[in-house]
């Protein structure tokens, strides 16, 4: 129940706002971030209002991205259901069964990961989907290839704050900048779920930056699967931040 719980928590953490119109201090989720990413260097400290503004803008984005998931493709449906460990339809009342991840999908995923690590090159969309399938497996899996590929993706994204459609030469990013929101939504979902039940700051840092891109582009995210992955990524971010803020007290 990650989304409902975390969003409730984010809402209760907010301080009362003045009735007058105020300008948000959280400005990192706007603009053409697919082409001109935030640098995040020497960012200004605003005070508690900044955290409130982040929470309210993320909650609004989650609302916008809710619903419309009844037409999910089976693969996305299966991955998301498994990852969230609940039928997706709970949120919109339509109900999904916990679609299985087939053995063929798992075999494909392992092949993609092995090839990526062995050759140092991969199509990013395939690589991310392969890792999402691994994350959605019900049994515990500890693939070394998955760890290596995640680390490479994290390093590449942190250095450029954009995704590339291919990784080459020891999984370094190629020249092909991706503006494919489907890739961004799945990558954000991946970094939302890949640290299991723990708060890993390195992973959360990537997730926050990827979600800034998603929120900045939320009005153009229309594909049901893209919306579902975006919602998942934002819910996982809220959950992780909640856990971090309450570390040591829960």
């Amino acid at each position: 129940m990650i989304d409902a719980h975390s969003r409730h928590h984010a809402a209760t953490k907010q301080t009362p706002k003045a009735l007058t119109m105020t300008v948000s201090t959280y400005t990192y989720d706007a603009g053409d971030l697919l082409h001109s990413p935030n640098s995040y260097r020497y960012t200004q400290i605003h005070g508690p209002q900044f955290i409130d503004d982040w929470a309210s803008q993320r909650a609004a984005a989650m609302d916008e991205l809710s619903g419309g998931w009844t037409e999910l493709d089976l693969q996305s449906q299966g991955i998301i259901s498994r990852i969230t460990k609940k039928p997706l339809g709970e949120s919109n009342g339509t109900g999904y069964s916990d679609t299985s991840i087939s053995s063929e999908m798992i075999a494909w995923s392992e092949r993609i990961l092995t090839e990526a690590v062995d050759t140092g090159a991969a199509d990013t969309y395939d690589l991310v989907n392969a890792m999402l399938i691994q994350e959605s497996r019900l049994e515990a899996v500890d693939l070394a290839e998955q760890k290596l590929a995640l680390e490479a993706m994290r390093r590449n994204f942190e250095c450029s704050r954009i995704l590339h459609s291919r990784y080459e030469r020891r999984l370094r990013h190629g020249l092909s900048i991706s503006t494919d929101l489907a890739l961004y939504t799945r990558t954000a979902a991946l970094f939302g779920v890949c640290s299991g039940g723990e708060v890993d700051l390195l992973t959360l840092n990537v997730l926050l930056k990827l979600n800034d891109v998603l929120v900045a582009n939320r009005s153009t995210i229309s594909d049901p699967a893209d919306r579902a992955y975006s919602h998942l990524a934002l819910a996982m971010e809220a959950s992780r931040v909640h856990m971090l803020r309450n570390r040591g007290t829960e």
Partner: protein
Amino acid sequence: MNTRLNDVGFIGIQNNRSRAYLQRLAQSGFRFSYAIILTDPQRKVVAGQQQHDVSTGNASCIGSPILPDDPFVIDESRSLIETLKAVGTNYSLVDSVDMNDDLVIEALSLRPEGVWCFSGSGGNILRRPVLSLGKRFLHMHPGAVPEFRGSTTFYYSLIESGSCAVSAIFLSSGVDMGDLVLIRHFPPPTDMSRIDYHYDPVIRSATLLSVIEDYDRTGAFSVKPQQNEGKTWYTIHPLLKHLAVLELGPNIQLDPSPDVNG
């Protein structure tokens, strides 16, 4: 008369970190053998600089001490050149803020100093040509290596451990993986609005002074290799930065009129 560090030069941009390095050493009786000041030809503000660093050159105010047992205060009304002239250090200006630029490499290669105290712009990673000059670059890294390599480690360290540290290292091709000279730990800042442009340079310069005092005493830098295993951090997201400052770090105050630039 200040003690001249015969084989140690200074190279950096004009900002509070560089001011702190030069001023603290000067106040403690040391001066670099030579200085190379890096400037942007268009006078743009680069990472680690504030507007006054590239316009009038100086701020009008002098702040208050940052650390409880350290009276040192950065005099922002003094330019680097004023401090260099005051202690009698010769210097040159280079029209580039990129350490990998040919102009910088040429300026360094003309000098005999074997060690250079580095105070470049944020994120300026040294590449093979400059690292192959036969010079060593002494860097004060704001985190305890190897656990805190990379960027904005002050904030990550505050979240993870509630404290801050500076590692004196020699730069190498791996990010913050060069030989280690010294690690000093410091109490966390009490005024978070001053962390980037005051607390940071004050504790880096305190660590530099410790290294230089030891060098002056022994005639050499005592170094040891780092463990390869460690963690590399990347520029912190502003939400985590706020959580570090306001909730997860030590109990600290936020100045109502922050002076940190975006």
